[in-house]
């Protein structure tokens, strides 16, 4: 437990020092940071602590280790507004040229118990299941699974969901998206997902789940995204 002691000196947080130097532009993207020995000498910290701090920033995606060459600054991560992530905004309004999407799977399946309960259907009712791979600047960053009752968007199979956002597609059908709720977790991620996204050992996965509501307060779609946490981060506008 932390003691309430105002005199406790602030322990030197090397990870934060390096992070600040990157943010301040002292360590420029594409350049190497000082060697572990040099950092140990400068800050008077042991090598293990230095290695932990550097590892953390490598896993965060701010630094990259290059065998035999040193540790390099990658620069800023791709930061996306969380409200935009799951297609709540129109693709046209978004026009984020960094992002491209590849559709891996689009099928009709039975709702099953979970989605029957979520959407208020019978387990045998049909739902669309769409799996998309999202790239930012040409690198696989996330896998997104969409679940949408067939009765909501009966001809979704004829629409290219990698071109249009869920908001766009809904509007084609005269459906007004009223609300979206999101939850964001940090998980280890399944072996399969980690492999599909080439996630390095030690890097965590962000799991973003969204429920989309129509004007009547009914859930009309659900999405689950597995996101590489070293490739992407989020911003949220706070409203009070």
């Amino acid at each position, binding site marked *: 437990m932390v003691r309430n002691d*105002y005199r406790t000196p602030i322990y030197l947080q090397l990870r934060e020092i390096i992070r600040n130097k990157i943010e301040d532009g002292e360590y420029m993207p594409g350049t190497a940071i000082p060697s572990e020995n040099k950092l140990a000498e400068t800050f008077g910290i042991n090598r293990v602590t230095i290695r932990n701090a550097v590892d953390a920033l490598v896993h965060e995606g701010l630094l990259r280790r290059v065998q035999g060459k040193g540790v390099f600054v990658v620069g800023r991560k791709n930061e996306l507004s969380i409200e935009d992530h799951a297609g709540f905004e129109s693709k046209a309004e978004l026009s984020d040229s960094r992002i491209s999407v590849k559709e891996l799977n689009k099928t009709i*399946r039975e709702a099953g118990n979970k989605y029957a309960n979520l959407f208020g259907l019978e387990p045998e009712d049909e739902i669309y299941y769409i799996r998309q791979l999202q790239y930012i600047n040409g690198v696989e960053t996330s896998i997104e699974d969409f679940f949408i009752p067939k009765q909501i968007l009966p001809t979704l199979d004829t629409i290219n969901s990698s071109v249009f956002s869920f908001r766009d597609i809904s509007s084609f059908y005269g459906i007004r998206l009223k609300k979206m*709720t999101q*939850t964001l*977790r940090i998980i280890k991620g399944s072996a399969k997902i980690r492999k599909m996204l080439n996630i390095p050992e030690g890097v965590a996965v962000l799991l973003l789940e969204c429920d989309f509501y129509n004007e009547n307060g009914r859930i009309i779609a659900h999405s689950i995204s597995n996101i590489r946490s070293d490739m992407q981060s989020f*911003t*949220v506008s706070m409203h009070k």
Partner: protein
Amino acid sequence: MTLMKTPPGMEAIEKLEDFIVVNRLKAHTRIPSEKDLCDMWGVSRSTLRQAVDELVENGFLYRVMNKGVFVSEKKYPRDMAGVDAMVRDLIDQGNDVSKHIISMNEIEATKQISRKLMVKLGARVYEIIRCRVINDVPCTIETTYINAEKYPGFTDLYSETASMDTLFKEEYNAIQTTGTEHINVTYASEEEAGVLGIEVGSPLFYASGIALDQNEEPVMFYKQLIRPDKFVFVCTVES
């Protein structure tokens, strides 16, 4: 488009998730044995095991050696509307929330702090580091920077029983309105792991942001480290 059969692995995960929800299984309840679940759903042992593994990896279930698989505790919501909303919600839900001040100092603004708080390099700034403890478990570490020239004496007024939000409002007439928060993942350093009672290198949410006042001037710049085994970020967007 023809009807495709749901892959068995996916189906098993969904059945398991639904089972917990529909039966309203409480935290630390043991789920039925692998064999019973396999018999009930007609899935293979290996498919079921993979489904359990995935839900364990995702933090919804946990394993106890020789005892079985249990439902994880529900995580606290960390509203993306900010820290104050989080604390209010937690208290409303009947949780015991307290904070410990790790350190409270007056420092000179670094380049990063000066830019965030829009003060001169080297200007006087309060740095307050706190740990929030919920139901006796340390869950977050927050570092807050406040412009000492604009909010003189803040550290004299602030204590473990005071609320920053209230102090700003009542003593300085500053109402925190909007801001942008950045959400990242970081990994616990030795000191952080020690404070939070977790393993070194465990992933943590790293939320940082600037709270603005009614005149859109920075009130504070903060960094919050949050245990992902205790918290989930939640957000509602309406249009």
